[in-house]
């Protein structure tokens, strides 16, 4: 989906109350109040279907994959490969063989930094990042910079926490890799990926997209983005912890040396050395997170069932409701970092990630008081310290919406905020 031209998606059509009922954790109480989970940017909750799929896997076909001829090992192998096919389709990838399983998006990006980066980048080469990046898409490049003398350069952000592309052409000079997030985990900003990819490709650079915060919320089309690598993580999109993936263009993956060495990633091993296997196996050393792959597959089925267009539409509406409600109730007492509106110039420019600054209450204290109301928001730097510095804060209190949230959750947030104001004013 091209965020620059498609504008606001059509109104969603699923029943949020019914959906919420499928998430065991959302039925819980905290401190005697129903839980209001607004930290899906950190990790999403999991529907029963995902837990059931993993339990079923363990109860019925648990076995190590790609190595056994017996029935359950065969079933387990098929489960992994059909999950790979499903994920590939979900991402709009041309081929399942371009999908490498990892433990999380962090490992996916490190894989690129180690395998592609250490093969293709030399002293003086430039890696272009943006000030919106999560540490996962910063530190691996700084490690490479320290080790190889690669230069790390930054695309700045404007006062709304959106990329400032005014000097893009100059910034792209000498760039070999552009590594950019598709959705900020702090401001909710959605950078124009296709435009950035086109500009980067025009100077011969490779493009890595950190889609950790995009894929859970919007229809994804890695081909439409014209990306070269895309990193995703399962636990933020209804899937279990411990599983992520890297999608990469076949030609690039084919030319890359292995990263982690061990079982399964080899063609042959002798005392003198080893021959690596084909992709994607080449990058999947050791026993994979098999149950987690199965659970992720079930999560994708749930998302497919709802339809990602509908998910995006629902979150779009809910985010607008939240922005409106918070502005109405708190006025200037509450500032929200990031783009002021959901849609700008006919494009969706922000997701439902709301980084709040409320009077002079420190985010950590705010989150503590909200917790007493059962409202879960995250306080901290959200693994984006360079962006925090630009925003002029050490931390924010971040409420992040997801498909199971509704207006009542936003209202609960507002009520809790009002109470926090009272508490610290007293």
């Amino acid at each position: 989906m091209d965020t620059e031209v498609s504008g606001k998606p059509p109104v969603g059509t699923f029943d949020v109350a019914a959906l919420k009922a499928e998430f065991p954790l959302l039925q819980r109480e905290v401190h005697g109040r129903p839980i209001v989970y607004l930290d899906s940017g950190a990790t999403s909750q999991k529907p029963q279907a995902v837990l059931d799929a993993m339990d079923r896997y363990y109860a019925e076909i648990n076995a190590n994959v790609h190595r056994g001829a017996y029935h359950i090992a065969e079933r387990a192998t098929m489960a992994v490969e059909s999950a790979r096919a499903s994920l590939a389709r979900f991402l709009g990838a041309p081929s399942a063989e371009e999908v490498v399983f990892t433990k999380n998006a962090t490992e996916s990006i490190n894989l690129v930094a180690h395998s592609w980066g250490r093969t293709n980048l030399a002293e003086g080469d430039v890696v272009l990042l943006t000030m919106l990046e999560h540490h996962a898409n910063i530190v691996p490049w700084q490690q490479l910079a320290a080790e190889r003398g690669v230069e790390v350069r930054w695309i700045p952000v404007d006062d709304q926490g959106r990329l400032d592309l005014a000097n893009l052409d100059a910034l792209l000079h000498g760039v070999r890799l552009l590594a950019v997030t598709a959705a900020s985990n702090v401001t909710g900003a959605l950078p124009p990926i296709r435009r950035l990819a086109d500009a980067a490709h025009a100077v011969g650079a490779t493009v890595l997209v950190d889609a950790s915060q995009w894929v859970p919320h919007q229809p994804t089309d890695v081909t439409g983005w014209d990306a070269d690598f895309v990193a995703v993580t399962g636990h933020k999109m209804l899937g279990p912890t411990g599983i992520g993936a890297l999608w990469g263009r076949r030609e690039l993956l084919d030319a890359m040396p292995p990263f982690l060495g061990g079982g399964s990633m080899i063609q042959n091993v002798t005392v003198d050395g080893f021959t690596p296997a084909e992709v994607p196996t080449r990058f999947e050393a050791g026993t994979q997170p098999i149950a987690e792959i199965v659970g992720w597959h079930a999560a994708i089925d749930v998302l497919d069932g709802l339809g990602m267009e509908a998910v995006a539409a629902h979150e779009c509406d809910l985010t607008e409701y939240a922005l409106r409600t918070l502005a109405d109730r708190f006025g200037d007492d509450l500032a929200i970092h990031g783009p002021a509106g959901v849609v700008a110039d006919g494009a969706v420019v922000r997701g439902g990630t709301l980084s709040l600054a409320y009077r002079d209450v420190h985010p950590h204290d705010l989150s503590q008081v909200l917790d007493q109301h059962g409202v879960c928001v995250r306080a901290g730097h959200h693994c984006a310290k360079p962006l925090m510095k630009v925003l002029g804060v050490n931390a924010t209190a971040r409420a992040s919406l997801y498909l199971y949230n509704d207006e009542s959750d936003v209202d609960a947030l507002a009520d809790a905020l009002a109470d926090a104001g009272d508490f610290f004013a007293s």
Partner: protein
Amino acid sequence: MAGLEDLYREIILDHYRNPRNRGELEVPPATMTEGFNPLCGDEIQVYLQVTDGTISEVRIGGQGCSISQSSASMMSTAVVGKSIDEARDVLRQFKEMMSIHEHGLEGDDAAPADDRPGASGLGDLEALRGVVKFPVRIKCATLGWNTLDQALVLSEAGSPTE
């Protein structure tokens, strides 16, 4: 559910017990290409002598299970005497037979769309169709053929040694 008899047809066991074209050829003039099944450890050597565009001699070396060995043996009899293009044709047909269809991958039992013997014109090789019901063994059945594929490329490139 697929039973053992679907996998171990009589003709397969015969090729396993009495492999055809087993041995080596002198390199050069022949070419030798080696294939591995990285999952199970099977390995195979395909020796190919191409004379005037025709596969005049094939020899098979290596170790493997009944499926990989018999498939390679059957492959050797199927391509000897054929032109490179004809051999490629058989190769393509065989690989098609071995490809699992989406529904097979997802369902409980992997059953190919058409498993009537003779449907593809592959002759004896048809006996290997049952392997599709045992997806893990497909890699065994195709090992010799994938190695042949590389061997043909090598022969065509006219390079006399590997």
